[in-house]
């Protein structure tokens, strides 16, 4: 079984300027903090970020926003990092607000080979602008299209060297769907074990989706 563990510098060397990156986590919980720091340290820029939120000021994705290396974010919530709203209103950062459940389904549909999803969420709101609607059995739905990315970076509690990963507590959030919808998937974890050591019953991200594993010096 392939050992996919590399060091964090090698991992971010693969990310070019202008890349689209899904960043897992919810307000920094289940977020790959060390990879974010390494992206900043290397000075990668013009990024498109797809994530639940843009972090809390000083934590997680907010560091990328503060460093002005992001040109576009697709996210459900920016309220905990006011800098995102500031850059949006200044016209220097493009922000596409996506309802949280819709964001998960758009990513899931990309990874699951679907042409999109039909959701009632957002009907009659700004979210519906420019989108096709369908009425099925008397109920109106929006057609929401899949979202893919060049990279997905995940924050696991434990991973084996093949990439099978476990996420403790509420750190699972966007990690499983994002693992399926990017060309290159990098898992950060504080604990790396050998294949066989992780009970298959608790594997939440499957090794076949994972390209690289890096060791974090903390779990954030």
């Amino acid at each position, binding site marked *: 079984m392939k050992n996919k563990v590399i060091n964090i510098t090698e991992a971010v060397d693969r990310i070019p300027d202008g890349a689209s990156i899904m960043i897992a986590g*919810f*307000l*920094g*919980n*289940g977020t790959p903090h060390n990879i974010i720091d390494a992206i900043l340290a290397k000075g990668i820029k013009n990024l498109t970020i797809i994530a*639940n*939120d843009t972090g*809390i000021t000083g934590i997680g994705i907010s560091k990328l926003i503060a460093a002005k290396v992001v040109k576009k974010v697709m*996210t*459900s*919530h*920016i*309220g*905990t990092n006011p800098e995102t*709203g500031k850059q*949006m*209103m200044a016209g220097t950062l493009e*922000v596409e*607000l996506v*309802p*949280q*459940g*819709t*964001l*998960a*389904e758009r990513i*899931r549909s990309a990874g699951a080979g679907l042409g999109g999803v039909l*959701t*009632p*969420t*957002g*009907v*009659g*709101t*700004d*979210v519906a602008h420019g989108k096709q609607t369908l009425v099925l059995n008397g109920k109106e739905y929006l057609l929401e299209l899949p979202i893919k990315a060049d990279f997905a970076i995940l924050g696991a*509690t434990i991973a084996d060297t093949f990439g099978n990963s476990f996420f*403790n*507590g*509420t*750190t*699972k*959030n*966007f*990690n*499983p*769907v994002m693992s399926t919808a990017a060309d290159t998937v990098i898992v950060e974890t504080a604990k790396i074990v050998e294949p066989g050591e992780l009970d298959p019953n608790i594997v*939440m991200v499957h090794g076949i989706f994972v390209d690289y594993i890096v060791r974090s010096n903390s*779990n*954030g």
Partner: protein
Amino acid sequence: MDDAKNIIARRIAQELHDGDVVNLGIGLPTLVANYLPQGVDITIQSENGVLGVNGSPEKGKEDPDLINAGGKHITVRKGSSYFDTATSFGIIRGGHVDATVLGALEVDEKGNLASHMVPGKMVSGMGGAMDLATGAKKIIIGTLHTNSGKPKILKNLTLPITAVGVVKLIVTEMAVIEVSPLGLVLKEVAEGTTVEQVKAATEAELLMSPDLGTFSVQ
């Protein structure tokens, strides 16, 4: 203001039923859990991926891997479970949440809700609110009656809409208002508050419930 929020939370708690699955929004709605009547046992969902939320941990005993959708550390009770975001919003959109308590910037007499942005001023994003407002079986709004004197309960929204015609009940520190097909019905006023005061603080027309009551502010 904290007093007002607790008055609202205590009154909303009386709307919940034993066995309900409930999602409490960030801020004021979270306080509802502190006031559940005796014998009412609910399962609290938080959309970041947990069923069975059970309040805040003691200082120093926080589990870094355990937060609610507001980013606050939580504890969970026996019988709780964790899941990913896709499952979480399947629970929400799929009609498996009996009630959600959400805050509001504005509500109008058709039950339309605005809660996610003030163009040019404040953009927080909808987070999970659009999905919750669309998918939960009962949408209860818990909000201060006015924004520093400016009515929040309007004939028509002025802010971008978060969900269309979903609100069933509005609870403020002054009143309990039901959204009916005929318009907004004033069901209860807070002890010490008059109907005239409620009307003066409300832009929308209020119909009087035939069994208008009062609720406690203790």
